[in-house]
C-alpha cells in the first residue's frame, strides 16, 4: 500500500490513531474532520485505559506505556487503577470482578478499608474496601487526541479540519473519492470513523450500521493534593485525578438522542452534575470541600450489543468502518493498529476481532432501538 492514499473520515481518537498507524506504515493519510480534532467524545471522556472485556485489551495494555515515546508528545498516561466500594453491594460486585481478573491472570490486589485510605489519601473510612488493578490506567483525552494528530502530521499525514464529509464517489466496486463542502479527495481506501454520524455516511454506500447516540456528562473540581495513584474510581462513577490535581468524574444516566448527518446539535450538561457531585463527595470525602469548576457533556454512540464495530466491508471492499461503541478512548492505540491491519492486510495481525464484525447484526430486528428502550424522549 506504500504510496497509496487513505482518507480517514472523522478526526476523533479512533480515526487519528488509525491514521497514525497507517502513516507509520508509509501510507499517505488524510484525516477529514467536521470541526477540530477530538472535539466530540474523544476529547471529553474519562480517560480510562483498562478495557479487559475487549479483544483489543492485550494490545491496549502493551501500547499505552510506550505511547508518549511513540507519538513524541505527552499523553499524561498513568498506570494502575483503584476501585473503591462504597456499599456492601458494590463490594460484592467489585470482588466478583476481582475474582475474574485473578482467573484471567490480570494482576490485582484486594484492599481493606485501612489499605484504601493509605493508597488513596482523599478516601475516608466510609468505604467497604477496594480493588487495586496493577494494570490499565488513564490518560488525558484532550492531550492524547492532539498528540495523535501532531504525530500523524510529523509522519507526513494531513489533517483537514472544518471539512464535514458529505458523500463518496464510487467506481468499480470501490470508493474512489470522498466529498466535502470544500472539495473531493481521491483515495485508494477509506476509513469511516465518524462516531454517531457513521450510520448517515454508510447509508450512502448502501450499508446499514446500527448505532444509537446518547449524551453523557462529567464534572471537574479545582486541583486537590496529588494522590500517589490518580486512577481512583468506583462507587459507580468513573474518572481520575489529572496530573494537575483536578478530579474529573462521570457516570450515571445517559439520554438517548437522534444525531443527524451534521453531528450533535449541542452538548448541554444538566443538573446531573449534582448527582455526580454527591457520589464523588462520598467516594473521596476528604475532597468534599473542593470546588466544582465545570461540567460538560459528550455524545457517544452504541452498537446493539455495546461492542465495537471494526470491519472491512466486502462491498465496496476498500472501506473500513470503525465505531468503538462508546468506549473508544482507552482502546485507541489498539483500535488504530487493528484498523491499519484491515486497511493494509485485510485482517488483524495481533488478535481475533471476528467478534467486532458488522455481520453479527445481519439479522437484527428493524426495531432494535425500540426493543431496548434506546429511543430519544419525544
Amino acid at each position: 500500500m506504500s504510496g497509496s492514499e487513505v482518507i480517514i473520515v472523522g478526526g476523533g481518537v479512533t480515526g487519528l490513531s488509525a491514521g497514525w498507524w497507517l502513516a507509520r506504515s508509509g501510507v499517505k493519510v488524510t484525516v477529514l474532520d467536521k470541526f477540530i480534532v477530538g472535539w466530540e467524545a474523544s476529547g471529553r471522556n474519562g480517560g480510562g485505559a483498562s478495557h479487559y472485556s475487549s479483544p483489543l485489551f492485550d494490545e491496549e495494555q502493551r501500547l499505552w506505556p510506550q505511547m508518549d515515546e511513540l507519538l513524541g508528545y505527552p499523553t499524561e498516561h498513568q498506570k494502575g487503577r483503584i476501585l473503591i466500594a462504597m456499599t456492601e453491594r458494590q463490594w460484592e460486585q467489585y470482588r466478583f470482578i476481582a475474582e475474574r481478573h485473578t482467573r484471567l491472570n490480570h494482576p490485582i490486589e484486594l484492599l481493606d478499608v485501612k489499605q484504601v485510605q493509605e493508597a488513596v489519601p482523599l478516601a475516608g473510612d466510609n468505604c467497604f474496601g477496594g480493588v487495586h488493578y496493577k494494570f490499565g490506567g488513564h490518560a488525558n483525552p484532550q492531550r492524547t487526541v492532539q498528540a495523535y494528530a501532531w504525530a500523524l502530521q510529523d509522519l507526513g499525514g494531513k489533517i483537514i479540519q472544518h471539512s464535514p464529509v458529505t458523500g463518496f464517489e464510487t467506481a468499480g466496486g470501490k470508493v474512489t473519492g470522498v466529498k466535502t463542502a470544500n472539495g473531493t479527495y481521491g483515495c485508494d481506501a477509506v476509513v469511516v470513523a465518524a462516531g454517531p454520524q457513521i450510520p448517515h455516511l454508510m447509508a450512502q454506500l448502501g450499508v446499514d450500521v446500527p448505532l444509537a447516540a446518547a449524551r453523557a456528562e462529567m464534572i471537574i473540581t479545582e486541583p486537590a493534593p496529588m494522590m500517589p495513584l490518580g486512577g481512583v474510581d468506583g462507587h459507580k462513577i468513573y474518572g481520575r485525578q489529572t496530573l494537575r490535581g483536578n478530579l474529573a468524574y462521570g457516570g450515571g444516566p445517559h439520554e438517548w438522542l437522534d444525531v443527524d448527518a451534521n453531528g450533535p446539535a449541542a452538548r448541554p450538561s444538566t443538573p446531573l452534575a449534582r448527582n455526580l457531585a454527591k457520589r464523588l463527595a462520598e467516594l473521596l470525602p476528604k475532597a468534599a470541600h473542593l470546588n466544582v469548576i465545570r461540567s460538560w457533556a459528550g455524545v457517544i454512540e452504541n452498537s446493539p450489543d455495546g461492542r465495537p464495530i471494526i470491519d472491512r466491508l466486502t462491498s465496496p471492499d476498500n472501506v473500513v468502518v470503525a465505531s468503538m461503541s462508546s468506549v473508544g478512548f482507552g482502546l485507541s492505540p489498539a483500535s488504530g493498529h487493528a484498523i491499519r491491519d484491515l486497511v493494509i492486510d485485510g485482517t488483524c495481525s495481533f488478535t481475533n476481532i471476528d467478534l467486532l464484525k458488522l455481520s453479527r447484526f445481519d439479522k437484527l430486528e428493524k426495531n432494535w432501538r425500540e426493543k431496548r428502550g434506546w429511543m430519544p424522549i419525544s
Partner: protein
Amino acid sequence: MELNFTGTDICAVNGTRSAPEAKYDLVVIGAGPSGIAAAIDGAASGASVLLVDENPVSGALMGNDTPLYFGGRMTAATQNTDRMLEAIFMSMPDLEKAMEAGVELLLGTTAWGVYRNGPGVQSLPEQVVGLADSERSWMVGFDRIVLATGARDLAIAFPGWNQPGVMGAAALQMLLSRYGAFSGRRIVVLGSHDLALETALLALEYGLEVVGLVEVRDAPQGDAALIEKIAEAGIAIHYGQSIAASKGGLDGIEAITLTDGTHIACDTVCVAIGLVPSIELVDAMHGPRALNPARGGYIPAGEPNVAAVGTCAGLPDTGFDHIAYRMDWVRAALRVNAPDTIICQCEEVTLADLIGVQPPNYLPRPAAIQARSLGTLLDDGPANPDQIKRLTRSGMGVCQGRRCRDQVAMMLAIESDKPFGTIPLASHRAPVRPLPLKILAEWDEPTAMEAAWDVWFGIPTQWVPVEDIGTEHQDAHREMLYTGMYK
C-alpha cells in the same frame, strides 16, 4: 447471551430527575438597581417573584477574584457575613421596597446554572435554575427569568500583575461604596474612559490618594466633564503609556514603571479599561448572544422568556468602541510583557507558553512539542480559545477564566492577525461559580435514579470479557453486575 428486552432502558435519565423544590412565575438573578426594578415590576403585575443575589460572597471566593476582580484588597470586614448583609441593605434601600411589594429575596444565594430542554436535551421535567447558598444547592422552576447579573472586570496582564493590589474597577467600587472594606491607600488607575474617570473620582471621594491615570492612547477617552474634574483634582494622566514593570513585596504591588520610564509608588493598580457583561448563565444555557463592541462585548440576544437588564444586557451605548480600545491595551501588553509574564494566574501559564501552545510545566516538552506553536496550529484552522485552553490550560483554573479569558481571546486575534469577532467565545459552563462538591451535591437524590445508576450504559454484553463469552461466567457476570434493562 440471550437477552430479553423490556422495552425500557432504566439506566437512561428518562423520568428519574427530581422535581424543582419551588416554582415561581419570575426569577430575577442579581439584585442591583435593574434587577430590583424588574422584580418589583413583576410583583406589581401579580407574578410570584424570586429575587436572588450572590452577594455577599464568601471571603474564599473574593480571594479567587470571584465574581469581581478584588485583587486581595478587601479588608477583614469582608469575612463578617452579617456585617456584609447589613451593608448591602444600607446601600440598596430599594431591597426593602421589593420585599414590601411581595418579592421573595434571597441574598448570599448564587444562581449557578439555568437548564431547559432544547437541542441535545429533552429530559428535563421543566426549565430550572440551580441555586446555592453556603449550606446547600437546590433547583427552582420558573416561567420567566430576568438576568441582572451586571458586568465584571476586564483584566489585562502587565509584568507583575499577578500579585495582590492589582484589581478591577467594579471590585474597587463595590469595596468602597457598598462595603467600606477597601484596604489600599495609593491608587493608580489604568484607562481614561468613563469607567476609569468615575472610579478615580470615587476613590478621591473616599479620601484615597489617586496618584495617576495611565492611558495607552495618546488622548483622553472619556467624557470631557469628567476629564476636567480629574484635571481640577490635579491628577496626572499619562498618555501613550502602559505599565512596563512593577515592584512588589509581601503585601503586593509597591510601585510601577511606565513605558516612558516614569516611576509611580502605589499600593493598588486599578484596571479600569473596561467591564464585560456577565453572560456566563446565558452562554452556559446555550442562549443566543451577539458581539456588540459599543456595549462592552458579547451580550444576550434575548428570548421570549429570558430577559437581560442592566449592564448584563450591555454597557450604555455612547458610541465608544470598547473592543477596539481593549485591543489597543492588549497590543501594548504584547509589546511590553516578557515571555515569562503569567497570563493565566490559576494555571500559571506564561505568555510564551500561551503563544507557543506549550503544555504545563509538570509535563515533559520533547523536541516535537517545542516545535509546535500557535503558528503551526493556525495551519490547521482558525484559532479557537477552547482548543488553546485544552493544550495550555489557560482559563482552566478555579477563577473559571474570569481573569484571562478576555485577554487570551484578544491575544489570539492579534497573533493570528484576525478581527476579534472571528475568535469564538470560549465556552462558559455550569456551575458558573466555583461550588464545593458537598454544596453542589443532590443529597436527597430520587430513589429511581439511585436504583438505576450505572457507571456507564448498563449494557451487559458491553463488558463481558471476551474469554468468558459462551461460558457459564457470562451469565454470572450479567446477574452480578446488571439488573433492570434485561430480564
